[in-house]
């Protein structure tokens, strides 16, 4: 096959996907003006997205904090700079590792589930049934998911940050013999508020991108069960790419603002 044709087809495919994602976002924003939410569906999604995700987020964050401390522990021990342990772990967790890792976990659990759910509704004509009942699927299904994912990813990131620091403190106490108070002193003396808020901005953005991307793939499924599987796969990959792209952009913007 002609390589130019292959590149062209890939480009067209990517453009179509990107265009579809933007269209979902436009429809969501249009459906939210004026802000109207299906209360039951929003509560249900807040529960499914947030409450059911917190165990996995706590576990991931706790061990991430522990790993950060173990990795830096060797150098801290060698140099005796125990005060830097809290700063290093806090900086990495709040600004980068926390939101990104939790975002990736969230996209794997919630985003994939969302695509599968909407995709199954699409292939079993439940989306069409909504439309024939004069109910806008964007308003009824997509907006509650968008709002829930954005809100809950922020809350889960705060929770994850907290447990990552707790994991780091426990590890420093029991593995490195560095008092946990020294660890937390390092965190609080480092003035990491900017990093914390940068992390929250990332969480909001990741929540929005995961919801929009996963809804797009769910609503455009075709081809039955195989199609749903393909859509879930594409959704997880695209969400991961989206997280890293937005992470780079926000990090660059935040650093430009902080160090100008």
């Amino acid at each position, binding site marked *: 096959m002609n390589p130019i044709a292959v590149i062209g087809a890939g480009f067209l495919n990517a453009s179509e996907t990107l265009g579809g994602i933007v269209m979902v976002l436009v429809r969501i924003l249009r459906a939210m003006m004026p802000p109207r939410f299906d209360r039951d569906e929003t509560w249900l999604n807040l529960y499914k997205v947030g409450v059911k995700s917190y165990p996995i987020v706590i576990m991931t964050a706790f061990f991430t904090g522990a790993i950060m401390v173990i990795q830096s522990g060797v150098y801290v021990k060698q140099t005796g700079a125990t005060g830097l342990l809290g700063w290093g772990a806090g900086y990495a967790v709040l600004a980068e590792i926390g939101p990104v890792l939790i975002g990736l976990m969230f996209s794997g659990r919630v985003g994939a589930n969302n695509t599968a759910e909407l995709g199954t509704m699409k292939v*079993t*004509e*439940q989306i*069409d*049934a909504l*439309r*024939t*009942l*004069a*109910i*806008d699927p964007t308003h*009824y299904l997509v907006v509650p998911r968008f709002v829930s994912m954005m809100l809950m990813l922020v809350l889960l990131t705060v929770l994850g940050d907290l447990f990552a620091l707790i994991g780091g403190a426990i590890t420093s106490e029991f593995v490195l013999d560095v008092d946990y108070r020294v660890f937390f002193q390092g965190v609080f003396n480092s003035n990491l508020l900017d990093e914390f808020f940068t992390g929250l901005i990332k969480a909001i953005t990741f929540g929005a991108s995961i919801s929009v991307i996963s809804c797009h793939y769910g609503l455009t499924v075709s081809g039955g069960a195989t199609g749903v599987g393909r859509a879930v796969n594409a959704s997880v990959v695209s969400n991961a790419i989206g997280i890293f792209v937005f992470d780079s952009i926000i990090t660059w913007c935040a650093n430009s603002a902080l160090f100008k």
Partner: protein
Amino acid sequence: MTQPSFRDTFAQDMPPMQQGPGPRSAKQLGDVVLRVRGLKKNFGDAVVLDGIDFEMRAGEVVGVIGPGGVGKSVFVKICCGLLEPDDGAIELLGQDLLAIDQKSRQRLRERVGLVFQNYALFDFMTVGENVAFPMVQRGTAKPDEIQVKVQERLAEVDLPNVRHLMPNELSGGMKKRVGLARANINDPELIFFDDPTAGLDPVTSSKIFNLIRRTQAQRNSTCLVISHDIDRMRPACDRYVLLLDGRVHFRGTEADAMRSQDPIVQEFFRKGDGSKVGAA
């Protein structure tokens, strides 16, 4: 493809039509509730509908028949606004379906019901919630009124005791009946049935068609029924439209069909399902 304007298409044979929102009852429309002209739909290179002309009047039950894959479901989905045609014009309950905006189309859908071939019940809701859902979303009735109406509709389809079950706990025939109850909950003027007996045994199929006729007679609604089960749909339908090769091949009553010398019509109406036509 350039689409001729709706006015051009109907200029000669149509009364002035209401544009945009502003529902009128079917009776006020000079009896025509659905009028289709020159409807075309392709999927890639496959021509599915190739210029369908069709008309339906208030209170009628019309059976749309034809071999499998001829485009019957596509036709219904276009008439409901779920699919966009490539060409043609559709007047649904006095409004130009292809010209009105999304909000007007949504208001129009409140007056139309559709029973899906594969049930399309919401699998995350109980049967009662499924039937109540259109009323709840409309937000014009009180919760106790909704509950009473749900019970009425379920009783009409002979399912008075299933409201707390989930759809996956029902048989195929029961799901179809729940679909019918849901489509009827807001008293639509026009109901489309997309192969309501697909996959059902002959006895249950007959029950479904009898149920369609009974509920239609109770409300004097208009029904368009897609099926290839001619024998069992006979008690339900006033007249038939036979689709073949993307076009209307025959239209008329059962008596017209029986008098017809057309071998394809004979094949369908005298042998029952027209399966040989599809094979040919």
